[in-house]
Each structure stands twice: as structure tokens, then as C-alpha cells.
């Protein structure tokens, strides 16, 4: 008997055989079903709780950061208390410049108080970034002690005390600001464009992208020219900044960049044009160093890197859309000088002219980044200060 025949007979003999279990299995089955159903509900509920907890955590974390970044009111109050209540706590450094004289001890104390008040005023002016009308209040208060201190100067030599006025541009003192830190979380929207020529044209022979088409059409290479025209990339983005200390902050975000190019094949009596559109999503990481603040204008330096992913590549040749390979990841590094104007304390308009270098990613896709790897660019944007002062 053949194996297949034997197998068929065995199968036929046993295929309708049933044997009852020795115990009722349904209870166990039902219990497992109930357990799985509860687990699924619990899983969904847990996910929702976790999402809610994450949202609450972000809100509380942001609120905590904002709460801890409130420098203004307590310092003002402290200045007042220092002036009126604690006259003996004058800075020793200032007293050393004054010739000790029993007759002018009171005047020394007054000068010391003035210096203390002025110091507090400059702290407030530098760190608060308040609108001018708010800053002027402590300034006005500070000038009162100044005027009082000036009176005795006729008889006694007084140290040349420099009272930095809020009207003067003030360079950052890193050591000072280490103590008085506004930790601000910032968020910004920006647009960016490169400042090179609008189009970059060159004649390229034997462009591999067009070579297959040339070969297919059996075009002769005599009287043949290829041209590339790369429009400047345009970027729009959203950035979030996190302060590391009083003058350094880290920022990141999301950037959308679009870059258009046109490739033209010129042949006698004929021209083929291919339009290329590349869409990128990038993640920048920048370090910002704040240099100067004056009347709501701040100047800073930014340096960092960015990784861009080509999310979409479009190609159109003579009106016909074609499939096109996406570009590889594009890395770039850059630096810029930033100028920001605070429209209101919470909102500033900024411009960051700078230089960016695009690294060769080794792809065969020709674009602006390969044609002009190093270029000037200009980023314009709006920055939101999430720490709104009271």
C-alpha cells in the first residue's frame, strides 16, 4: 500500500472522532476571557491616565519654571528694605575708597546706601528686561539718593562712584549674572532664506540625472549643454529655547525647508526642463549667548547644527510628474548674530543674519546645498517669552 493511500485511510478513520474532556473547561475559559477583557479596559484606562499625567506634568513643569523665574518684585522690595532698615550693611569695597573721617561717617553710610540701591537698580534693569516705564521707576528712586549724596561732596572728597544708568548699554558681567538669573523658556516662529543670488546657474556636462534620457533619445553630445538653476531654500520653523544660565540658552525645534531647482538640457532646436522640488523637515540644535541688552533691544550670538530629512521629493519634466528618489539626510552647521526687539515683554521680533555650511551627504541629488555648501542666510522670526512678568 502506498504511503498516500495509507495516510488517507488513517485520516478518514479518525477525522470524525470526538472525545469529551474529563472536566468542564468552560469555567476556566470564561475566567480567562473576563481577565483579558479587564486587562484591555485597564490598558486603555492606563493609557489615558498616563496621557493625562504627561499633560499635567508638562503644565506643572512649565508653571514651576515660570514660577521660579520671577526675579523682579522680591528684589525691588529688598532694595527698599535695605535702604530704610539696614544702614550698616554697606558694601565694604566702597568704604575702602573713602578717607576715613569721623565727620563724614554719616555721609559714607549714605553713599554706601546709594551704591547699594544703585547696584540693585542695575540688577533689576539688566535681568528683568522690563519695558522702559517699569525700569524707570527704580531709576528714579535711585536718582534721589544720588542727589542727596551729591550735596556733601562740596566739603569732602567722595569717591568717584559710577552709577550705571539704565540708559547706557550695559555689557553682560558673567560673574554677576550668575546670581541673578531669569530662567526663561522661549518659543519662536521664524522664516529663513539664504542671501545668495536668487538663482545659481552653471553649465554641467554629463549630468548623470539626465544622461539616461540623453542616451535614450540618442542625442549627440555636440552642441549640447546642461544647466542647473537652484532657488534659495526657504524655511519656516518653530523653536523652543531653554536657558542654561543667565547668558546661555539652548534651543531646538522643527524647521520646514523647501528648495526648488530647475535642470535644463539644451540641444539644437530642443530644450528639456525638469523641475525639482525638495521638502525637508529639520531639527536644529543651537546654543545662544546673550551679549547685550539695551532699551528692549538685545544682541546675541547663535551657533549650532541642524539635521534635515527629505520627506518629499517631486520631479516634473515637461509637465509630466515623475518618481524621484528622496535625498539623504542633510546635516548643516551654522552661526549667526542675532538682533531682537521686544515689542512687548512677552514678544520679540528678531533677525539673525548668519552663515550656514551644508555638509555633502553623498547623494546623487543635485540641489542648492551641494551647489553652494557655504552661504549666508537670514532668519526672521517671532519669539515668545513664556515667562510673562507681573
Amino acid at each position, binding site marked *: 500500500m502506498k504511503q498516500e493511500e*495509507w495516510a488517507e485511510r488513517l485520516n478518514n*478513520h479518525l477525522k470524525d472522532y*470526538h472525545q*469529551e474532556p474529563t472536566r468542564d473547561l468552560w469555567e476556566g475559559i470564561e475566567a480567562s*476571557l473576563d481577565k483579558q477583557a479587564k486587562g484591555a479596559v485597564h490598558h486603555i484606562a492606563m493609557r489615558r491616565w498616563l496621557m493625562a499625567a504627561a499633560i499635567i506634568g508638562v503644565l506643572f513643569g512649565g508653571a514651576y519654571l515660570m514660577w521660579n523665574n520671577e526675579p523682579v518684585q522680591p528684589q525691588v522690595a529688598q532694595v527698599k528694605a535695605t535702604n530704610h532698615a539696614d544702614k550698616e550693611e554697606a558694601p565694604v569695597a566702597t568704604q575702602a575708597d573713602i578717607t576715613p573721617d569721623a565727620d563724614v561717617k554719616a555721609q559714607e553710610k549714605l553713599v554706601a546706601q546709594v551704591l547699594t540701591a544703585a547696584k540693585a537698580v542695575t540688577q533689576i534693569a539688566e535681568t528683568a528686561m522690563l519695558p522702559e516705564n517699569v525700569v524707570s521707576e527704580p531709576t528714579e528712586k535711585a536718582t534721589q539718593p544720588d542727589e542727596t549724596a551729591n550735596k556733601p561732596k562740596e566739603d569732602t572728597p567722595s569717591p568717584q562712584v559710577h552709577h550705571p544708568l539704565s540708559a547706557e548699554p550695559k555689557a553682560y558681567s558673567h560673574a554677576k549674572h550668575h546670581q541673578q538669573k531669569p530662567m526663561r523658556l522661549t518659543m519662536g516662529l521664524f522664516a529663513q532664506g539664504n542671501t545668495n543670488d536668487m538663482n545659481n546657474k552653471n553649465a554641467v556636462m554629463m549630468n548623470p540625472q539626465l544622461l539616461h534620457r540623453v542616451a535614450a533619445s540618442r542625442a549627440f553630445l555636440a552642441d549640447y549643454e546642461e544647466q542647473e538653476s537652484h532657488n534659495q531654500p526657504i524655511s519656516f520653523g518653530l523653536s523652543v529655547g531653554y536657558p542654561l544660565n543667565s547668558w546661555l540658552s539652548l534651543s531646538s525645534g522643527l524647521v520646514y525647508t523647501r528648495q526648488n531647482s530647475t535642470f535644463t538640457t539644451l540641444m539644437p532646436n530642443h530644450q528639456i526642463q525638469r523641475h525639482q522640488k525638495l521638502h525637508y523637515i529639520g531639527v536644529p540644535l543651537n546654543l545662544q549667548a546673550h551679549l547685550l541688552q539695551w532699551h528692549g533691544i538685545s544682541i546675541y550670538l547663535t551657533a549650532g547644527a541642524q539635521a534635515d530629512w527629505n520627506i518629499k521629493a517631486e520631479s516634473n519634466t515637461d509637465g509630466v510628474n515623475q518618481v524621484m528618489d528622496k535625498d539623504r539626510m542633510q546635516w548643516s552647521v551654522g552661526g549667526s548674530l542675532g538682533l531682537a526687539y521686544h515689542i512687548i515683554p512677552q514678544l520679540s521680533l528678531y533677525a539673525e543674519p548668519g552663515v550656514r555650511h551644508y555638509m555633502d551627504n553623498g547623494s546623487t541629488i543635485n540641489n542648492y546645498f551641494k551647489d553652494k555648501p557655504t552661504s549666508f542666510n537670514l532668519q526672521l522670526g517671532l519669539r515668545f517669552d513664556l515667562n510673562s512678568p507681573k
Partner: protein
Amino acid sequence: MENEQQLLSAINQGDRAAMRQLYERYKGYAMSIGLRYIPEVSDVEDVVQDSFVTILTSIGKFDYRGEGSLKGWIGRIVANKAFDFVKHHERMTFTDVIPDTQDEEPEIERIPPNVLTAMIAKLPTGYRMVLNLYVFEHCSHREIANKLGIKESSSSSQLSRARQILTQMITDYIKRHEI
């Protein structure tokens, strides 16, 4: 009695009574499949219970293709669960011994199904697996070889050996019971 499609429809709506009805209808069938793979009845019952939990939780994904398709689907799930049980609990060995041929083979149909099932369950693990996969799961030797990690020629020789041993068991049973 509801047909498979009606039963499916009720189960998909979460009818617990319909689920129980499905279990009651096919539990014997599931047990018979399990008993060909696993010799111990208590182990078979555990596998059947686990199989029905899987069946009832994934029945929404089952694509009904006519009367009998549900039974076939249930049978495959039970067979797979039983196969996995044997794979995890027993050591499978395979030999390439060329079996001796027999001149006569007794009729399989003379042996009661429960006895024949028990005989299959008593086969050495490797032979048992190959026999079940070839005879009852209708797998080719190539598919069996892939599933068990053996050569295709080994699958064929294992089946021949299983047949030889089973034939010997049947012969002994017939002699003892004078049937």
C-alpha cells in the same frame, strides 16, 4: 441548532451564551486533535482550554468561507497549540533509519478510534509529529521539514518509520483482542 454563520454573528456581538455553545459543539473535536499529539489527558485539556480562549478572543478576525470553515479553523488552532506544547515539553529526536518493509498491513478500520488515537500518542515524539502533520494537517514533507528543522528526506523516512511502528501496534492489538 444554529449554523456556523449564525453562531459567529452572535459571538461577534459579544453573546456569551453563543461562545459557550461554540465550545460545547467543538470541544470533543478539539480533544481528539490534542490527544493525537499529547499522551497525557490533563495536558490535552489545558491545551484545549487555552485554544478556546484564543479562538474566542480572535474570532473577530476569522474570515467565514462557508459551512465547515469554522471547524477547520478551530482544528488548526488546536493543532498548532498542541504542536507548540510538544515542542516545549518533549524532546524530539529523528533518525534516518531505513524502515523494514512489511508484506501485509492489517486494516486500520478494525481498530476503535480512541485506541488508534492512543496508539498514535504513544509513538516517539519525532514520529508522532511527522505523522500528525502529514496525515491530519496535510502538510507536505517540505513543509514538515521546514517546520521541524529537518531534511525533507528525513520527514519521509520518519513517516515510514511511524507507519511501521503503528502497524506493529495494531497487529499486537488485534492479536490480543482477537478481533
